Structure formats: C-alpha cells, structure tokens
C-alpha cells in the first residue's frame, strides 16, 4: 500500500497530465455530437453577446460589400419573380415553395480556415430555430444548425470536411454529393459522378430534392475544374462556391413545415 502511494506521489505530474488530456479529448468527442446543448460553446449568452458586439464594429467596414450583395440578390429575385409570373399567367394559386418559411438572422462569428468550421448566428430557439434546420445565405447554401441556444445558434458550415450535401447538377444529374476538402474556403468537390455523364465547366450545382433540410434548387456552386483520369470511374470535379464565406453577414434559417412529418416517417422506416 505504502509503495503504491509512493508510486502515485512520484508520478503525480504525469497522472494529472493523463487526466487533463483525457478530459480534453472527452470534450473533443462531445463537441462533434449534434443537438446536444452544452454550456461550453458560442450559443452561451456571454460568449454570444461578446462576439456580437465585436462583430457590430466589424460590420461597418463591410457595409458596402453587403449592400452590393443585397442589391444583386434583389435584382435576381425580381427577375425570377417576373419569370414566374409570366409562367403562371394570372393564376397564382400554384405555390411550390409554400411549405418553407425563413427566419432572418445575422452572423456574429464565422471561421473558414479550420477543418470543421462553424458559424454563430444571432437567432435561437426563441426565434424558432431548431437543430437540424438548413441555413442559406444571399446567394447559396451556408450550412445546417448544430445547436440552438436561446438567442444564438451554432451552424455547421458547408466548409466542414465531415459534412456531405445531397446535390444535383442542373439538367444533367439528379443525385450527387458535395463535400469540402478542407483546403480553400472558395472551393469544394463533387463526389461520385460516373464518367459517362457529359459535363462542362460552368454547370450549376444545386441542392437536390432528396433532403428535408434545404429546399431543392438552391445554388451551391459552379463547376470550375473538371478532370477525368484515364483509370478512374468517377469524375474529379471542383466547384467554386457561390457564397463568399469569408465575407458573409446575413443569412436565413430554413423552416420546413413538413420536417416533423418527414422525420417521423423516416424514424418509422428505420425501426
């Protein structure tokens, strides 16, 4: 017994080291879980409001860019609206997007250079945000809500090497996968496109209809590099993301009114 105590005393520094490292790794693993609201992240009120007030100052410097982005989006939306009106004629009863609604919010913190990037937005469960909802920016998709605090939420960005997005290439392929490779915040990869398709640089990649998170047809990016190695069965595709993640400030959280129903159906099938 005495020698055991002596042993503990002799190696106490190393034992404490092991203990603290285990605690740290426990936190790392804990942090990769979805839906678990823990105290230690930026949905926390103190952390969120500090980041927000710092961001308020930063925002003044990017007002011009934000304005330009918004007016561009306005123009695009107006064009789409007019096209739709023309298509529908006077009969406006067909409303395909009606099961989605949107919650406006502002980004208070954003990182793009890590491997698992997150954003913090200033809307939480008080505004109706729930974990699992999609988030879109002014020109394309941004990510998916990971945790919702009362007034702040964290969002897993598209710029996360572990995130896969169900996508389609407009008019060509109706199911493929988009994933970030961890390198540049401007580009991502499209995976599993068989070589017999006829693709071209400049094709648009959008979200597919096979998910309940994003409405279908939201732009993700434009094909910027297309390589077909001799012996590979899949294309090697790089897309340029339409959102400039280094300079995002306003986003919308997508509220799918059918989500609870879809979720419960999926669960029934799994059981």
């Amino acid at each position, binding site marked *: 017994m005495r020698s055991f105590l002596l042993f503990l005393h002799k190696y*106490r*520094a190393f034992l*404490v*080291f092991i203990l*603290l*490292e285990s*605690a*740290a*790794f*426990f*936190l*790392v*693993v*804990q*942090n990769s879980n979805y839906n678990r609201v*823990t105290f*230690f*992240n*930026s949905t*926390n009120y103190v*952390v969120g409001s*500090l*980041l927000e007030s*710092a961001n308020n100052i930063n925002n003044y410097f990017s007002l011009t860019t934000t304005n330009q982005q918004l007016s561009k989006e306005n123009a695009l939306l107006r064009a789409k609206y007019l096209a739709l009106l023309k298509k529908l004629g006077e009969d406006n009863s067909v409303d395909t997007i009606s099961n989605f609604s949107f919650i406006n919010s502002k980004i208070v*913190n954003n*990182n793009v*250079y*890590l*491997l*698992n990037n*997150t954003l*913090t937005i200033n809307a939480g469960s008080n505004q109706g945000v729930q974990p699992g909802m999609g988030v879109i920016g002014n020109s394309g998709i941004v990510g998916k809500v990971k945790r919702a605090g009362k007034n702040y939420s*964290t969002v897993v960005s598209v710029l996360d090497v572990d995130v896969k997005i169900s996508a389609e290439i407009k008019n060509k392929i109706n199911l493929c996968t988009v994933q970030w490779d*961890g*390198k*540049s*915040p401007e580009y991502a990869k499209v995976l599993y496109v068989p070589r017999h398709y006829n693709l071209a640089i400049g094709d648009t990649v959008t979200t597919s209809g096979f998910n309940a998170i994003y409405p279908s047809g939201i732009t993700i990016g434009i094909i910027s590099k297309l390589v077909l190695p001799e012996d590979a069965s899949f294309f090697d595709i790089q897309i340029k993301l339409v959102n400039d993640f280094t300079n995002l400030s306003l986003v919308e959280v997508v509220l799918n009114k059918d989500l609870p129903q879809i979720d419960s159906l999926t669960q029934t099938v799994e059981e």
Partner: protein
Amino acid sequence: MNKDNIIKLVTFFSYILFQVLLFNKMVFLGKGFAFIYVGFLLSFQFELGIIAAMLIGFATGVTVDVFSNTLGVHTSASVLLMYLRPMLFKVFTPHGGYPLGARPTPTLMGFSWFSTYALILIFLHHSWLFIVEAGGFHLFLFTIQKIILSTFFTFSVVIITQYLFSKKSGAR
C-alpha cells in the same frame, strides 16, 4: 488577492480578448494562425508547480475553445505545453540556475535562449493542436504546412509582445 494575481488576471483577459476578437480572424495565406495566448502560458515564472501549470493551461485552453467552437483542441495542446515546459527549463538551465521568482523573458534570459525555448514549445503545441484538429494523420502535408506557417506567425507575435510589454528585469 494580491497585486501579482490581479495583474495576471488582467493579462489573461487581455490575451484572450486579443486572441478571440482579433487574431482568430487574422489568418496568413489560409494556413498561418497566430495563437498569441501561448505567449501568456510561456511567461509564467520558472518555479510554478507543474500541476498548477497544467491547470492554468487547461483553463486557458477551454476559454479559447469556447470562443472558437473547437472544444478540447486548444485545451489538450495547452495542457501538453504546460506539462513539457519544466522539462525544457531543466535542459536549458544556465550557469548558476535561474534567478528566484523570475519569469522567462527575452530581456532577462537573452534573445537566443528565449527564442529556442519559445520555438520548441510553440512547435510542439501547434503540431499537437493541428493533428488533434485533423483527427489523425490524414491530410498530412496540409497539416505540416499549417504547423510550420503558424509556428512562425505565433512566434513573431509572441516575441513582439514580449519586447513591448515585459519589464526590463523580468523579475516581479
């Protein structure tokens, strides 16, 4: 609480604020990060007990992690740094030992002593941090580039802060 502890606390908060509000946004070529809070950990006095040191490392790491949503990553790297620090002191003991109550600063220990000490610890801290962040050894080349660029970025900022803010004598 005596004057020393208050100064330490103020230093702690200013390092954290600068880290999370300013340096977290400054990334060199998309790969070089400056984790200036390492400078805070490096500048504790020589006699600080290893267990207290690791607890300080843990607390500092958790605080930085909370703000960057990278829970555990900075924590584990900081604990490692504080665990290795006394060993480095042992290896680099100058003639006649360390002055009592002193802190390792470039003005007290000389530029070459301090930069060896800081570079080794910053390099180990960053290697550990980026490998834990990547979750292993895939993306190896990319991780290596990040480690090297960030080591030099952090080191430069730490040296500059040391010369700007540490007292001439280094003793307190």
